[in-house]
């Protein structure tokens, strides 16, 4: 389980990659990864290609990231998810409040 954070050189996008299980145990690490990063009028990308599992507390963390992004007029995009994770995101209708791609 780990989180890595890459910020583009133009400062318009930041990519967070979540490896392993995305659940409550990542709560602090996930928040730490984005809290000091301010992307203004850009995009926070959460790369879920290495994510095996995602639970409802992870959905909650994504909502916190969305709040952080919106306070900087930025958006959150979720990418790289597996079919199983897509299913979880769809059940929660997160496709209506996040950009999926």
């Amino acid at each position, binding site marked *: 389980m780990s989180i890595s954070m890459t910020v583009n050189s133009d400062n318009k996008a930041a990519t967070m990659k979540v490896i392993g299980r995305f659940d*409550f145990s990542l709560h602090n690490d996930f928040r730490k990864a984005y809290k000091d990063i301010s992307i203004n009028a850009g995009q926070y990308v959460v790369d879920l290609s290495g994510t095996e599992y995602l639970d*409802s*507390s992870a*959905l*909650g*963390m994504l*909502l*916190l990231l969305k*709040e952080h992004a919106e306070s900087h007029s930025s958006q959150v995009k979720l990418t790289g998810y597996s079919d199983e994770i897509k299913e979880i995101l*769809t*059940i*929660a*209708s*997160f496709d*209506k*409040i996040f950009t999926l791609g």
Partner: protein
Amino acid sequence: MSFDLNEVKNVLVVDDDLTNRIVLCALLKESGYDFIEAKNGEEAVQVVENNHIDIILLDVMMPVMDGYQAAKAIKSRQSRFIPIIFLTAMTDEAALAKCIDSGGDDFLTKPFNHILLNSKIDAMLRIARLYKNIEEKNAVIKEKNLQVQQEMILTKKLFEKIVRNDLRGDSTGLQYSMSPMSMFNGDLILAERNQTSGLDVILGDFTGHGLSAAIGALPVSDVFHSMTQKCFSFVDMLTEANSKLIELLPTHMFMAMGLISVDRSNNVLSVINAGLPDMYLYRNGEIIHTFKSKNIPLGISKLTSSQFEIEMHTLEYGDRLIGATDGIMEANNPEGEMYGLDRMLKIFESTDKGEDLFDSILSSCSYFCRGAEQTDDITLLEICHLENIEFASDKEFSNEQRVASDWALQFSLDIKSLRQFDVLPYIMQAVNQLQPLESGRTSLHTVLTEMFANALDHGILKLDSSMKDTPQGYMDFYQEKQRRLESMQDGSIQISLNHELNEEGGGRLSLHLMDSGEGYDFKNTNTNKNQYSGRGLKLVSSLCTEMKVLGKGNAVAAYYNWNKK
């Protein structure tokens, strides 16, 4: 902490040899310890019983009771940690191992080195100090734990009163099972009888578990019970619950939920699935419809009542709606495998009798888990559409009795008000304040609802009831209604209520509804027996004392007689 580093330590010296004792005691005195002497094991046990001893220096070979037995007796009787150092002339390994086996903490072979003895005593006292520290902290934690537990029990009692559910049972068709993972539960089931005498039920699952997850249940329960009782529509109720949760819950918390409403007047099931796993409608051994999640869970985004996606399906008696939170899918066995959707769907296929479905799912899940500890709350719910249902008691009539009076109310609604809000709850509230009718609020509300729907759906919007004849039709009907309501330019409904006392202390309530539509040829519709069918008026006529269609078919009057019991 009461421990004092400078406190003089009391050492018990146990040896049958006087010389040994004198030498040891002199040494201890020199190092600043107090001491007590004992000549054998039995004496030593006595001394420990009656004195505060910090550490024991124990010889092995002694008359009456040897060192091994003494160590065993002392360690078994004392709850606090008293270190024992064996002093022995024996050097074979088996004998030294026996020292430790019998309860000794260390040993030193005679003749011993004074410096070594002093260091061993120091080390042992240090360990004893640690033990004492831990014991004291444990006692504090134990006490705090007890306090927390008592508070939890109290809170749980209060909590259960607030989110109580007394509508479960054979007579209502509702059954459910909740297995709380902890004392409180992130899952929630709320049920209330609606205006058609059917059930409105919320099945909810808050993010997380335990107390923090359960907190959100209180406002939801409050909004649900009070608004449903006041006959607000379930979308208005959900809109309110959603804004309450947005206001109260931190950003990362939300409630996935399903709202299930059984309309007994029309035999229609409405479901709003917002983040729960699929819910199933089961009829005659098979799933005839799957209600998928199409809405955002509550507590995340502001929503207006028209933003909820409702799915509807016609109901036949014996139909069963099965819903569950994700706990049942994710229930795991000792090997960490999940129960999963496929296993549950197999039960639907293999069960022929609907009555067994609910229990079969539960037992198949618990058989699969084989007692493994669960990481999520498991909640399963079933609503069966029974031909006859009975609710235990009608608590609505516990209202204090008001003196009957004569009164009249009039409402006039133009198309804009008809579009914007649901006036019926307000009328019902007014009636209840003015005159709680002893013969039943629910049926009065049904009468009013049906008359209103007749005026709006058929009189003004000119919708055709035969649309509702197919399972998909009801949904189409509902959507078409929304569409026409939005685009309609003109139209109005007049509602008059008039209450008159009778001589026996009861009264007669007249309801008169007139719409601006063209009316219909009510005199020649069908046979006499079914003349009202298709306009929802059959039900009205069966619930009230008298009913008449008036004018050109654009007005209906219903009379409702009631008597004091």
